[in-house]
């Protein structure tokens, strides 16, 4: 047959038709469908041996117990541990998403690096650890040789009291620099308040679980205050069972209908920064109605009634101050809270069996105000809730061993005599350890940066400091910055050298006494996976660095590695005896044991204890019976001081040095004499003309967004509502009435302008926002990290105009004057 066109067409058609009769098309269809089910770009997670490793979360000072599920070498899920005292079972969303912080490569530094691009551009080239040590040690040695070790400064964000923090402090001393600063935290306020009123040095210990009336002044119980795992677990317990038979009442004092405020049994909304006045108003009602604990006040407190000093002057006592100045009507004027509410709140608080007033400001990652704390603590004292079950406990400090006494060399001892840049601990700020805002100002206000080399540990001050962007400017002036961050955060991007730490799942580390916990707890986390990249535990790096700097510095670090240093401190735990290293969820640590009962420690030697701590990750001492009153308060009067003798002394000393007026001005004090020694309310100084900036901006924190130096795991952005963040814009929550004044509608773009800057946000009309206040969420607005976090929303810290808190000098970040301008 000849191949004609017709034949050809017929053959093709016939062929096609014929193939339909074969299994081929069906097989192909099936194969293609199977291919869609096994697309090569859809990952197939390899399986393997399943295992679970117990550790402790280090993402915040809360230190919850975590159980990490693994398949072979891969960690696949983090869960809360039920065999850990802090958080029986649950953890917070940040901890839950922790694996993304481990495995998201673009968030992390994969090895030591040197800056390659401009500062802030985030371009680095990898170098070896040896080279990295040479660079830092060389620079430090040079400075030391020049006799200016004080030009080395460190910002340390590791929680106070942890071993790595102790080593960093020690390194600074050994090198000879006094300029060791820390980002502010609520624990600073607690520490100072406790020192002044109780003379104790232990952390704040709120016995929440045993309380029947929790009156929280601003503490974001559900926003991440304290150890979130612990507080939220308590929250669940409080709401167990029949609502009419609930034992515990929760009252939240806060200006915004936050989760805590909404979920509490009662919400009281004073103007921001007037919490102290409200507490004193409650005190007024309690004193006037005679509902206060007369026995505690008489036996264990001083400064309640007026007294006459040795010189014969009459001093005002707390009682008179409160009765004169803080009647419900007077307080209503300050706070905007209805006087009736104040009275009923006071009665409720005073008539509870075990009330506790908790002080806080959102999460614990920003400082509070000293006098506010004192007001709240005075309330606890008034009702006798100090050293009483369900109130504020006064446990002994955690018995960790001190590190051996450091012998500093000649260069260092000269350097240590130089004044601190932040003036903390001087007569102006007599009780303050560290004032990073002053540190920033000292750099920004001098023509040449007094700091030559800045070491940044576990902190991202560029982002987290409420300083209107001051620290960023300071970073630009500092000639050399070394970051130890495992993450590509804003501060690290400004650094010249990166010595990356391992993430919390790759290293051994400790957590010491989670914020607010009522019993001492030492948590030990361990490497859950081998370090993924060429990173090293900063604890080890500090020790190694000390040796690289020189023998005289390295001599102060006699440990082989970080673990040895940890052991050296933990030795004290063993010596103190009685600590438990395992936890039975049937015997919660907060349940008061009668002496001699309850679980016994099972270890015989330190090594045994250490081994058990490594597997269990904990050492703790359950709550025991109230302590004897004798010697409990280490104040000058030996009692709880409503009126602090230390403050009186400090003001007097400073006044003697310079004039009284200048002293008070420098200490940012408006009150004088006796009032200044007691809890009182001072209106923050207006930073700007209120007609130009009629509104106030208040940053707020959320449980489901990390606002500290740890980046938010991308998973968290699933939990953010579309009226909190939409594409690249975050929202300001504003009361509809306030918005109406400016003719603003939901979702509208607006500029929030403060005297120091402006931010563009969208408007979220929120009935639960106090009129006149603009609420901006903290945690958005990163300019570093990867596409999951970068460029999303704005960081309210950038427009904060912070005043100084009286006496303490901490930034008053809750009172920024702003205005709204439509874009």
């Amino acid at each position, binding site marked *: 047959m000849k191949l004609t066109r017709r034949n050809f067409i017929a053959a093709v058609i016939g062929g096609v038709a014929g193939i339909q009769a074969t299994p081929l098309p069906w097989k192909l*269809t099936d194969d*293609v*469908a199977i*291919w*869609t089910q096994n697309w090569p770009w859809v990952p197939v997670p390899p399986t393997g041996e399943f295992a679970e490793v117990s550790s402790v979360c280090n993402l915040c000072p809360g230190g919850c117990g975590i159980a990490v599920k693994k398949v072979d070498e891969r960690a696949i899920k983090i869960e809360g541990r039920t065999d850990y005292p802090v958080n029986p079972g649950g953890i917070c969303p940040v901890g839950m998403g922790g694996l993304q912080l481990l495995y998201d490569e673009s968030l992390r530094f994969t090895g030591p690096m040197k800056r390659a691009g401009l500062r802030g551009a985030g371009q680095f080239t990898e170098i070896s650890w040896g080279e990295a040590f040479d660079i830092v040690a060389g620079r430090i040695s040079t400075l030391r040789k020049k006799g200016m070790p004080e030009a080395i400064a460190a910002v340390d964000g590791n929680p106070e009291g942890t071993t790595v923090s102790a080593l960093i402090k020690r390194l600074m001393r050994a090198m000879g620099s006094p300029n060791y600063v820390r980002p502010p935290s609520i624990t600073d306020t607690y520490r100072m308040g406790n020192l002044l009123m109780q003379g104790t040095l232990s952390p704040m210990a709120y016995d929440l679980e045993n309380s029947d009336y929790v009156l929280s002044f601003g503490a974001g119980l559900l926003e991440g205050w304290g150890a979130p795992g612990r507080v939220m677990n308590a929250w669940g317990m409080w709401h167990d069972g029949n609502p009419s038979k609930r034992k515990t009442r929760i009252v939240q004092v806060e200006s915004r209908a936050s989760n805590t405020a909404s979920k509490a049994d009662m919400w009281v909304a004073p103007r921001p920064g007037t919490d102290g006045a409200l507490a004193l108003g409650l005190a007024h009602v309690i004193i006037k109605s005679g509902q206060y604990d007369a026995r505690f006040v008489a036996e264990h407190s001083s400064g309640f009634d007026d007294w006459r000093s040795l010189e014969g002057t009459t001093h005002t006592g707390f009682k008179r101050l409160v009765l004169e100045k803080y009647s419900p009507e007077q307080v209503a004027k300050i706070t905007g809270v209805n006087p009736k509410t104040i009275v009923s709140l006071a009665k409720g608080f005073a008539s509870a069996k075990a009330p506790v007033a908790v002080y806080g400001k959102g999460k614990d990652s920003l400082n509070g105000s000293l006098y506010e704390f004192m007001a709240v603590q005075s309330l606890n004292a008034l009702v006798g809730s100090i050293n009483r079950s369900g109130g504020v406990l006064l446990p002994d400090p955690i018995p960790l061993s001190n590190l051996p006494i450091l012998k500093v060399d000649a260069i260092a001892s000269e350097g240590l005599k130089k004044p601190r840049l932040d003036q903390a601990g001087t007569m102006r700020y007599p009780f303050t350890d560290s004032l990073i805002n002053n540190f920033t100002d000292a750099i920004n206000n001098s023509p040449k940066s007094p700091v030559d080399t800045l070491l940044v540990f576990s902190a991202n001050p560029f982002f987290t400091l409420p300083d209107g962007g001051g620290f960023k400017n300071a970073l630009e002036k500092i000639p050399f910055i070394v970051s130890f961050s495992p993450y590509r955060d804003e501060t690290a991007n400004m650094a010249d050298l990166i010595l990356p730490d391992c993430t919390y799942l790759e290293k051994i580390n400790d957590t010491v006494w989670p914020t607010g916990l009522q019993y001492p707890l030492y948590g030990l986390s361990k490497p859950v996976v081998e370090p993924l990249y060429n990173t090293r535990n900063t604890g080890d790096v500090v020790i190694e660095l000390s040796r690289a700097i020189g023998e005289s510095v390295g001599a102060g670090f006699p440990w082989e590695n970080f673990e040895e240093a940890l052991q050296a401190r933990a030795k004290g735990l063993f010596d103190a005896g009685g600590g438990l290293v395992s936890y039975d969820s049937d015997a919660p640590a907060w349940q008061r044991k009668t002496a001699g009962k309850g679980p016994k420690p099972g270890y015989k030697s330190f090594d045994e204890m250490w081994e058990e701590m490594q597997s269990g990750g904990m050492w703790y001492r359950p709550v025991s019976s109230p302590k004897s009153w004798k010697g409990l308060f280490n104040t000058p009067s030996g009692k709880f001081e409503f009126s602090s003798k230390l403050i009186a002394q400090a003001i007097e000393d400073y006044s003697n040095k310079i004039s009284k007026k200048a002293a008070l001005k420098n200490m940012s004090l408006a009150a004088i004499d006796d009032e200044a020694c007691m809890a009182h309310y001072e209106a923050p100084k207006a930073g700007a003309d209120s007609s130009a900036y009629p509104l106030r901006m208040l940053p707020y924190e959320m449980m489901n967004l990390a606002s500290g130096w740890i980046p938010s795991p991308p998973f968290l952005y699933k939990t953010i509502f579309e009226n909190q963040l939409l594409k690249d814009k975050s929202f300001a929550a504003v009361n509809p009435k306030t918005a109406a004044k400016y003719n603003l509608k939901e979702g509208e773009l607006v500029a929030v302008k403060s005297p120091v800057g402006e931010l563009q946000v969208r408007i979220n009309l929120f009935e639960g926002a106090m009129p006149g206040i603009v609420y901006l969420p903290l945690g958005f607005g990163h300019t570093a990290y990867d596409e999951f976090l970068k460029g999303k929303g704005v960081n309210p810290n950038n427009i904060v105009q912070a005043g100084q808190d009286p006496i303490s000098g901490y930034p008053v970040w809750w009172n920024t004057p702003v205005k709204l301008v439509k874009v």
Partner: protein
Amino acid sequence: MDSPLLPHGVKRCSTWAFFFWTLPWLALLAWGGLSAFLCLWKGLNQTNMSNVFAFALWIVFDLAVIALGAGAFFTGFLTYIMGQKELKNIIKPAVIIGFICYSGAMAMLGIDIGQPIRGWFIFWHANIHSMLVEVSFCITCYLMVLAIEFIPIILENRKLEEIKELRIFGHSLHEIMAVFAATGTFLSFFHQGSLGGMFGVMYARPFAAREGFYIWPWTFFLFVLSAIACGPCFTILCTKLTEFFSRKKLVPDSAIQLLAKISAWLLSLYMVLKIADYLGWMYGIIPRSGLTFESFFREGPYGVYLVVCEIIVCGILPAIILMVPKGRQNQGWLIIACLLNCTGIVLNRFLFIVVTLAIPVMPFDRFWGYLPTWQEWGIGFAVIGYGFLLFSAAYRYLPIFPKERELNPITE
């Protein structure tokens, strides 16, 4: 150039004129092709559809096009089964329009599903309780029927008719067309109904939910009725459009009038039932779900005006115009009425798809808006382009209007 392909005894425009006429439609097709490529290659993220608007523009297009294409089966039914010989003059364009609508809809559905390659799972793993399965089966089968009905029309092409086997095949097919027409009617009835049923059975969406008969909610029957009420009108519109562009009379008025009259009766019946349906829904299903009629229209651009439009402007009004002999005999009114009728049905489909999804059921959920992307429009318009192209090619090369020669004698 292509004169040997043109039918005998009719006048057609020049090849160039025809070429330029096709350009805009080809452009639409090219736009659609690019859109389709992007949607298949990169996925449906190219659209603005979302988990809220799981069905959107494409499904509205699909349902509209299938309803409008109902002229094919219904005219076939009237011609071959009911023996309305007059309609032989319009059955061929009706079939072609039907074929265009159904094939276009199928193509769109193929892009609309997230895993087109697994599309055949509908048949293989069929869940017979799903109205969409009924729709898919019937549409697929009916598309085969339409193809079979289309074949003899193609084979009437001058060149193809010269081939004996093909000619005989065409004629033989034509002879038993009644059988196919009957099958097509059966299939169409069920898929038009099932398309309505698809929404009526969504009992958890009070806006769409309807009660009904056995497994079929009322929307099943309403959709059938509305489709056969508007299908003939769409056929009329398409012939009128062809007449307009070719500047010729192509179909005798008697056929058009007959279709218009039938449409009038069906539309009137539909309106009565639809109003009853609305009332039954407003006083039955809505309050039972704890909602009110107004509560559906509180937010967003979708207001009660849509319902008013659907019922009064695009329902009762065209029904009256078509019902009154003077109305339907006037060319202008006839076209307006047909347009309104078709719009009303499309509006009805839009309400059932987009508005149903836009209205949140949970009281604390929010209202969502939706605007299609250019990729979505592209694919929608490509179907229109494809329709114009195929229909004008059919008109040019096939004798689809039997009375064309008679009505337009070539005087030379």
